[in-house]
């Protein structure tokens, strides 16, 4: 009978996840006889996600695909889900290996780490200070990208990472943190925000401080949200993978696993429908695709898509 796939996101209402939900519906339509339950807490807490997951277990859904607020705290709840025969995967922000069958990274961690530094460095021919504005200090994916970014820093001589601050994916907090960065480091050349909330807030803060042209805001953002920043010049360029594709792929994989068409094990190759297929490494993790860079030349084309 009908297959029910739950797409559990960090919090409802975030543009990125709304786009992913669109992709999930697209996959469901393509696969047929599949119902998508798009859900999540209203604030980015692990406890909130656990309650949602418990409710999903009770409904006996076939698969849960979760973008986690906390890699560890969800493990017991997700384990219980797997014990009751539910297929569990994580996507975007991962869960510790115990708590899921596989994890779908939007892109490879190394690639993202490199991309965000490169985005900043491309517009700093003379080098200089950069700072990172992250989401919550507990966000797994953010931390992994930042680690990866730090690892490639030696490849960019003259680029000096002065601070990492956390805006908790709250606009006002991110805004204040960005302000603080500009006050503390008057010579700051770029703010790198690998989060869609943070990059917007930083862009606003730079605009308000009258530092367009002086401080370049870059990182990961959605074209629809970033169009204004690119137009004003606060952002030279930014990157993102397609969240619609990500939602689509997560759903497709969950369906494949739940229907027994594929098995999550190291080395396995699982189909992602129109996107291709993903190959799992030894922690059962796979990457979807490369991030794509947007700037003044192509933003118009994409801003109405996602």
């Amino acid at each position, binding site marked *: 009978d009908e297959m029910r796939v739950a797409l559990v996101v960090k*919090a*409802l*209402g*975030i*543009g990125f996840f*709304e786009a992913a939900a669109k992709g999930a519906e697209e996959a469901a339509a393509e696969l047929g006889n599949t119902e998508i339950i798009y859900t999540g807490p*209203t*604030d980015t807490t692990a406890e909130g996600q656990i309650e949602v997951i418990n409710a999903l277990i009770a409904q006996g859904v076939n698969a849960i695909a979760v973008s986690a607020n906390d890699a560890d705290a969800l493990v017991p709840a997700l384990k219980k889900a797997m014990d009751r025969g539910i297929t569990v995967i994580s996507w975007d922000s991962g869960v510790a290996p115990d708590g899921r069958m596989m994890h779908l990274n939007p892109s490879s961690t190394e690639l993202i780490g490199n991309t965000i530094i490169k985005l900043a460095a491309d517009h700093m021919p003379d080098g200089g200070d950069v700072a990172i504005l992250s989401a919550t200090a507990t966000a797994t994916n953010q931390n992994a990208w930042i680690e990866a970014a730090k690892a490639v820093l030696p490849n960019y001589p003259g680029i000096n990472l002065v601070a990492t*601050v*956390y805006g908790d994916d*709250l*606009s*006002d907090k991110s*805004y*204040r*943190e960005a*302000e*603080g*960065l500009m*006050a*503390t480091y*008057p010579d700051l050349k770029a703010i790198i925000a690998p989060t869609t909330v943070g990059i*917007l*807030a930083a*862009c*606003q803060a730079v605009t*308000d401080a009258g530092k367009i042209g002086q401080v370049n805001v870059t990182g990961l953002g959605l074209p*629809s*949200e*970033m*169009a*204004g920043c690119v137009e004003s010049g606060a952002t030279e360029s930014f990157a993102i993978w397609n969240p619609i594709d990500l939602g689509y792929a997560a759903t497709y994989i969950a369906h494949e696993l739940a229907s027994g068409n594929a098995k999550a094990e190291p080395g396995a190759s699982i189909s992602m429908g129109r996107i291709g297929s993903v190959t799992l490494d030894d922690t059962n993790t796979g990457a979807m695709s490369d991030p794509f860079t947007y700037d003044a030349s192509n933003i118009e084309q994409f801003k109405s898509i996602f």
Partner: protein
Amino acid sequence: MMKRLATSREAILFGAILVLLALIATRFPAFVAPSNLAGVFNDTSPLILLALGQMVVILTKCIDLSVAANLALTGMVVAMINVAAPGVPVPVIVTVAVLLGTLMGAFNGLLVWLLSIPPIVVTLGTMTIYRGIIFLLSEGKWVNAHEMSPAFKAFPRTQFLGLPVLSWVAIVAVIAFYVLMTRTTLGRAIYAVGGNPHAAVYTGINVGRTQFWAYTISGALAGLTGYLWVSRYAVAYVDIAGGFELTVVAACVIGGISIVGGVGTVIGALLGALFLGVINNALPVIDISPFWQMAISGAAIIVAIAFNAQASKTKGRVILKSAEHAA
């Protein structure tokens, strides 16, 4: 006069803020540059506005835990209006925000006044209800910067005589509240109601109605702040200013406003908010890990209330003639 000034709670708090600034300056001199201080003030303006409203409520022996939710709901509504009708001029938006906030404040006030439901229960309830309504209205979706009209976003940051309008709103509010609390009948009635509700009845003051007005005032400020907040940070979503109600109460408490009512001043509320504002802005700058921020403000609250309690230990009445002269 000088002596009384020197020992007043406000003067001591002001001194504490100066000492704090001096300490920060030793590690990071640029922090005390006028332009940066103006920035700190601007950042603290929403807290000042809300603290003024909360002060009025606390003075009447009540508490308003719904201010942050009120702010968020108003902010979302005006943001959605702006998206739906970008042409609506800012003065209309401001009016709508104030009216909506007033309405929510008045609803709290009515429950407290007419049904005598304990204030903390009323505002605990409306806090979750107002937040929930934001979700129902917005379906959880954010309103982002690019969806807002430039005029909508420009208002709080427009510079006027060297300061952004946001700062000016706070300054005007402080002056207006100073006049309200010291020079108007309502202001004095608010003190009377909180100081001694029983005696207020004997003086012809309607206790419940005064509390109603206090909530209404607090709501109006929350509504105004809702628009300012949303336009300043250029985003509206369900959780904006989540948990901010307790920061607001903390600012009042630090400012020497007694939680049992009747005691506290506008200057106290202003200084309490500035104290927290300086700490919040300074910590990242002087390279203290942001993770210390919460503990420091918690400790500041405890020290402040212990201090206030010490300063206001009632001397009690004096029967002995000799003791009366000594006192």
